[in-house]
């Protein structure tokens, strides 16, 4: 009987965590929807071609940090962009910052942890993405 109660409390806690974070989640999703509708993939691909150089890398890092695309869409998109003439370094910058840096989810992250931890984590992820991009630039 005690175990049953424990599980019930666990589920109640789960509901509490969920309903507490729901407004943030909904607004983050809507913001992502609005941004992606305005910034279409072909605009992105125009800006980060293989000739775009360091400017293209910075742009890719920015785009990757801001947009929220699931990995299962990002890699096919990256491959398509490569075929369409985008550079490896730019795609590397885009893909890695997309996964690790989240400007849009920053408010959510701050709410969970603290402003300092959220900003430090994202800043370090951005630096790591840049290092990876440089390595790819040299090697591929």
């Amino acid at each position, binding site marked *: 009987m005690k175990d049953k109660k*424990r*599980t019930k409390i*666990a589920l*109640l*806690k*789960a*509901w*509490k*965590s*969920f*309903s*507490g*974070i729901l*407004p*943030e*989640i*909904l*607004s983050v*999703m*809507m*913001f*992502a*929807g*609005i941004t*992606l*509708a*305005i910034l279409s993939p072909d605009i992105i691909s125009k800006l980060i071609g293989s000739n775009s150089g360091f400017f293209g890398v910075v742009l890719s890092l920015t785009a990757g940090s801001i947009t*929220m695309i699931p*990995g*299962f869409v990002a*890699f096919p998109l*990256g*491959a398509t962009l*490569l075929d369409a003439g985008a550079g490896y370094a730019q*795609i*590397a910058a885009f*893909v*890695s910052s997309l*996964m*690790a840096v*989240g400007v849009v*989810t920053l408010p*959510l*992250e701050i709410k*969970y*942890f*603290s402003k*300092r*931890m959220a900003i*430090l*984590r994202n800043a*370090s*992820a951005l*630096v*790591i993405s840049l*290092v*990876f991009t440089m*390595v*790819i630039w040299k090697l*591929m």
Partner: protein
Amino acid sequence: MNTDINADSMNTGLENPNMKSIRSSMNSGRLTARSENRSIKTRAFAVVKKFRFVIVFAFVIIALYFTDKTEGIKAFNISLSNMKEMLGLIPPIFVLMGLLDAWVPKETFIRYMGEASGLKGVLTALFLGSAAAGPLYIAFPIAMLLIKKKAKLAYVLFFLGVWSTAKLPLLLYEISYMGARFTAIRIAVCVPLFLLFSLIIEKTFSAEEKESLGRKAESEFS
């Protein structure tokens, strides 16, 4: 920020909200129709405040629709599919976490990821992070649970880093699209760097800051 509202939502599962408002006004010793009326009003206001960004963005999407029909519809569809994805992912994760929290003792977490866990902590973070599926924001509450269970902050940060860049299911997918070389370089460069930065970031945190983070984690799951 939302602590008072959180407390509310926890209770609504136990008793109906009307009962609760009566009880709370009884507690405060003012059982008049007016005060109850006011409490409903303040509660409605709290809900609006809680969802203010949702309301603002809904208006932005509507405005977008009237300036450019296709873009408005696109924004709506992308938002909707994002939300569907999230709402599918989050409840099971939260339920799993609630159960983990209730059933796995703190000592187990300390043994595997605590201050003194050393290499075991690094490997546990690596394992937990790479076994994951889903976007990074799903990992935030899990990281908070780890903090609550006294995992070392650097390992929690490393767990987040691994989750973001080296999820196994996604790696196989990445190899098929970007090539094994690209993926191998990414893992070889990013994973060690994430570990390094996690240790550095933890160093910048004072004992006090870590403690306040621990308290926050505690209240998140209480």
